[in-house]
């Protein structure tokens, strides 16, 4: 009986934490800076340093054409505030973008690789701008502070009477409260992103598509959908449904303009190979296959895509993957856009399969196409060995 009482009290306490009120926060005003003695100024200071570190991390894509293009999208979405925001394209092979309270946005290259047109990217950028407008970091910080204050007091109480497990339960309930708050903010940012893209003349029906593709990727990777209890964001399925309904209500089947697809794909074309290379380093082959499949559907420079398809098989190295890889490389060589590295990979696989003549041809083709390659001496050594074996 006593134990049941304690557990009841623990739950009551946890619920008390969630209900702990935080004063409402007004939207950010263009160009406004927080007063120096506020918690918000502290967060800005901290993030100013993070921004300086990021800026000089060596992982920022600085290509002028691409950065101008993305800057223009941001200003089209939010002409009032775009001069107060900065953005950095960060070489990271995951679907993500993030907004800091002081107005800098990170856009990961994995997001650019996965967006199929400007409209999809605009939706995600609009979502991030939503976090900035609503000062979500500040809200989240205050919320977390309130909750962890409660937690520390509670841990003390339980430390005093020796109930470790009870402490754990309060912790879980408290954390769930934090996550629920975060879910609300994500929904809010979703709504703002949707409104901004619609007002800027993009096709809102593209917003749910990016989630649909992502869900496909997660399912392929075998990621179980997060449980409701720990989900820090609305589930992808829920967002997808909501966005589809919103798009239907907003434009039906007649959007203001068709999605901007060709200019977008042209813009990322010079980077696509490098970003696919980065994706493969994660060795999450099932998910990368989904990304590749979507790119194959666009049918732009398929030679490059077949090369990375071959690389996927070569790196995965499961049963029959070597044969599949050779087949993909051979296909690449018949298509537009294959990189000279196709010859190198093909040569290596021929070498491993003891097919010496084709290996030599492939290596020679590689060196002819890339005489200055950093691994040229290595390939020359292979060729020399092939020659010696012949004699």
């Amino acid at each position, binding site marked *: 009986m006593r134990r049941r009482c304690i557990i009841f009290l623990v739950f009551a306490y946890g619920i008390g934490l969630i209900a702990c009120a935080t004063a409402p926060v007004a939207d950010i005003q263009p160009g406004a800076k927080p007063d120096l003695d506020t918690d918000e100024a502290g967060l800005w200071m901290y993030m100013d340093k993070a921004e300086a570190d990021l800026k000089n991390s060596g992982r920022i894509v600085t290509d002028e054409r691409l950065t101008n293009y993305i800057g223009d999208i941001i200003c089209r979405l939010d002409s009032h505030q775009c001069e107060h925001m900065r953005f950095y394209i960060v070489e990271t092979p995951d*679907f*993500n973008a993030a907004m800091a309270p002081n107005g800098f946005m990170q856009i990961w290259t994995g997001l650019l690789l996965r967006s199929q047109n400007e409209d999809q990217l605009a939706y995600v950028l609009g979502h991030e701008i939503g976090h900035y407008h609503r000062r979500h970091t500040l809200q989240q910080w205050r919320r977390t*502070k309130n909750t962890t204050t409660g937690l520390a007091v509670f841990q003390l109480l339980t430390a005093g009477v020796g109930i470790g497990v009870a402490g754990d339960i309060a912790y879980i309930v408290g954390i769930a409260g934090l996550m629920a708050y975060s879910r609300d903010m994500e929904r809010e940012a979703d709504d703002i992103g949707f409104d901004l893209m619609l007002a800027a003349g993009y096709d809102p029906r593209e917003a749910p598509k990016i989630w649909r593709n992502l869900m496909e990727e997660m399912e392929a990777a075998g990621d179980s959908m997060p449980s409701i209890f720990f989900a820090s964001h609305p589930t992808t399925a829920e967002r997808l449904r909501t966005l589809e309904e919103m798009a239907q209500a907003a434009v039906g089947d007649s959007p203001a303009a068709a999605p901007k697809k060709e200019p977008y794909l042209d813009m990322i074309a010079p980077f696509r190979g490098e970003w696919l290379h980065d994706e493969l380093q994660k060795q999450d082959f099932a998910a990368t296959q989904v990304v590749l499949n979507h790119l194959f559907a666009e049918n732009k420079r398929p030679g490059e895509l077949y090369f990375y398809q071959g690389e996927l098989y070569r790196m995965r190295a499961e049963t029959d993957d070597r044969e599949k890889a050779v087949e993909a490389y051979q296909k690449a060589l018949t298509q537009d856009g294959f990189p000279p590295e196709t010859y190198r990979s093909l040569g290596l696989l021929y070498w491993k399969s003891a097919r010496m003549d084709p290996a030599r041809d492939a290596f020679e083709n590689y060196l002819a196409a890339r005489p200055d390659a950093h691994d040229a001496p290595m390939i020359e050594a292979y060729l020399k060995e092939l020659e010696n074996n012949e004699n």
Partner: protein
Amino acid sequence: MHGKLLNGNRGIKLFSRHAAVPLLSLACFSLLLAACAQTSHLKQTDAPVSIPRNAKILLMTPDIQLFELTAGGMQEPKADWTAAAKQHVRSTLAKQLASRNDVIVPYEAPADRDAEHDHLQLVKLHETVGNTILVHKYVPALNLPTKRDKMDYSLGEGVRQLKARQAADCALFIFMRDSYASAGRVAVIAAAAVLGVAVSGGVQQGFASLVDLETGNIIWFNRLVRGYGDLRTPEPASEAVTQLLAGIPL
């Protein structure tokens, strides 16, 4: 940083990664406290340098951040305290070094972006080397066999870029982090004490180094780690800087 779009364990939650930094330094702090008894400053043994009087010292922008420790143990960054601390540290440095007729030249970031980038890489390199010294020279259990009896850390000749631009003999780098218990935290500490539980109430930590801008050698290095002090007000801040600069060959 908030705003992760995707839930799931494949993404990285950015805010928590940044927030982990002060936590990490706290962990380092406890490691270092264990080693508190030994003498603190270190001098270059590889190629000892005597610095001429009236030397020109380039003062790199001090990397200072102050935090308030909330009742729950979170470190809240404080912009106003940090601004005050930077001011106090600068004026103390100016006073102390002026007494020796050394010339202090505050670092100025170049307008050229590439040059600025290179300078920032040097600052980052210094932070990394400084942390290495803190861990491997001050914690006996982690002493490196090849470095046991000497102090020969260097940033390399890349530092000549700094020398060339502002014509200085050496550069002084300063890194300080300070945290203070909030009223709520003090209450938690008191309550915890009654229950026999120890709860941390904030720490002052930092390190400083003097770098020869010809060779890149760290001529002198010192660290400060303690559970008291106050960078927010002039006198205690001045005292902290004096402690930090103890034994500096200037």
